[in-house]
């Protein structure tokens, strides 16, 4: 069964704010690894049992997030069964509405977020990122909260990392057509490969 990159669809907010990200991550995984990856991603409702068929799922948005009871229950089940949810704040803003509401929802459903140390195996799963999560151009340009976020955050369930939360706006950083990677001196989607490899091997 091929690895399929899944984007989570939730009822509130704008879940589809980074439509090119999936294709870009899929391209990077196929480019650097021999992982058998499906050529196109999947969109899965958060409240659907179908989410359980995608143990790595990506969730993003700009707008306030309010999970329904069914979404909250499924999120808890998904993480308890071994799923890994990668959440990225498309606002890259610690005071933004997505950050405030999404972290609140995650806290209610799964527990509080905590910093992931920059020595975590996530940063060595395939490529090595000695300084932790790679910075994005949006952070360096001083947009949003004007901060370079030193850490990703996470929530553990049953001793395993179940949620990875990013305020770094990879949704903007990776939301370009894969063909345009040839204009980059360093492929900025390599951390996406680490995410996928970590999910498949942790």
């Amino acid at each position, binding site marked *: *069964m091929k*690895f399929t990159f899944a984007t989570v669809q939730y009822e509130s907010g704008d879940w589809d704010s980074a439509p090119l990200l999936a294709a870009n991550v899929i391209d990077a995984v196929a480019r*650097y*690894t*021999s*992982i*058998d990856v499906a050529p196109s991603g999947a969109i899965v409702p958060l409240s659907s*049992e179908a989410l*359980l*068929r995608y*143990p790595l799922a990506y969730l993003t948005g700009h707008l306030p997030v309010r999970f329904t009871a069914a979404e909250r229950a499924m999120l808890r089940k998904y993480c308890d*069964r*071994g*799923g890994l949810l990668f959440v990225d704040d498309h606002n890259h803003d610690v005071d933004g509405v997505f950050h405030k509401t999404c972290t609140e929802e995650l806290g209610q459903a799964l527990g509080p977020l905590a910093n992931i140390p920059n020595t975590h195996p996530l940063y060595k*799963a*395939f490529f090595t990122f000695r300084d932790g999560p790679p910075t994005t151009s949006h952070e360096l340009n001083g947009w949003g909260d004007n901060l370079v976020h030193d850490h990703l955050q996470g929530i553990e369930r049953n001793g*395993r990392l179940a949620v990875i939360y990013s305020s770094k706006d990879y949704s903007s950083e990776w939301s370009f057509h894969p063909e345009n990677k040839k204009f980059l001196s360093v492929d900025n989607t390599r951390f996406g490969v680490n995410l996928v*490899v970590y*999910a*498949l*091997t*942790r």
Partner: protein
Amino acid sequence: MPSRADGLSAPVATSGASSTQVLRVVGAALHGIGVVCMLLLAWRLFTPVQDQPLSAAVSTSGTLDQSVATLLRSRRDTIEVTLDAVPDARSRAFFRAVRGSGHVLRVTAPRVLPALAVAAEEEWRASGGTRLQVVAADSARHAAQDAAGLIDSIAIDSAGLRTRSGPLAGALHVGRAGVAPLVATSPTEARVLVLGSATWESRFLVAALEEAGWPVDVAVSLSPKVTIGQGAARLPSRDRHAIVVLLPGAPSSAMAALPAFVRSGGGVVIVGEAARSAGVAAIRAGAPGATMRGEVGAEAGDEPRHGLDLVPVATLAPGSVALESRDGRVAVAARRVGAGRVMQVGYDNSWLWRMAGDDQSPDAHRRWWSALLSGIVSQREPESRIVTTAESDTLDAAPVAALARDLGLPTVGGGAVRSMASPSLAASLDPRWLLATALLSLVVSWTLRRWRGLA
């Protein structure tokens, strides 16, 4: 005219003649008795006598009701044993020795002895535990107990019973059957190496095995030049690994080592599409058939493995045994290769069972995989079977089967045997008594003759 003396002597002579006559008759009779006894003694000594069999019985406690010394002192050729219960190991050993010394041993029982067999094996679970299997000839309820006391009351039907319990304290006894549990190789000794590529199957299989207590090394290929994993070893090694689980996409260098690994006593589990690899063609349980797609959603139903893709074993290799089937196709098969065992599991994406199944599915998935691996790992020998001398006297995993092996099954109907025919005449004549009687008779006869002469 008769004299006075004549008058007196006539009665005396009559009386003396009468006494002499009596003594003569008695002496002759005693002489005859003595001669007869001597003749009988001679006949007895030269006539082969069938000894009266010595009877022994095994009481309901399973032990002999006569002391071994009594039986050993008897010089009988035949010993009849009546079994009211299955004899214990010590009694059977004695009977074997009696039979081995040339005696005839007849074993009877008033009724059919109820067969019972029990096996106990430690399970590889993080929490520990024991797997019990009990079979009985008749439906019955038996008490299971170990050294710590009563464990449970077990109801056994004609199909036998398989159940689980916690760790045992010493030997297990179920009814008259007892067994020292076979100690499975502990997880610290039975390390598993998972070979494959980075897939959800490898990721969730490793998680399931680790949760079940197995120490796991992992080597998964991420690209032609990159293999990552956990643990020190990336290649199968009998010094380190008891089992190798082969998933699709494993590094070819590792696969090449598998035939030698299994022939030297290792266990190999070949999963799904990995059976198509040329490197395992010589050891797989059978040639794989076309992939059958799982029924979407069935992984959450009553038969969760119906929801999984299946690479069936289309043609079983010689010596292979089908262990599980689905829709008429072999789903799991096993075979012996050299000193090791190979299990071929056709299910290709069992992770869906764990992830998308019902609430019990993570545990069921974990137990299923753990049981598969337990089935192919070689048991530790021989210390797991050592029991103390005291225990060996009482432990019989299958006492009736052991009786049949040692002495043969008893003839049912002990009453008929007990009322055997009376002993022969020769056997009833004791030579000692004959000799004593003959000597006494002849001596008395000779004495009477002497006395008569003096008179």
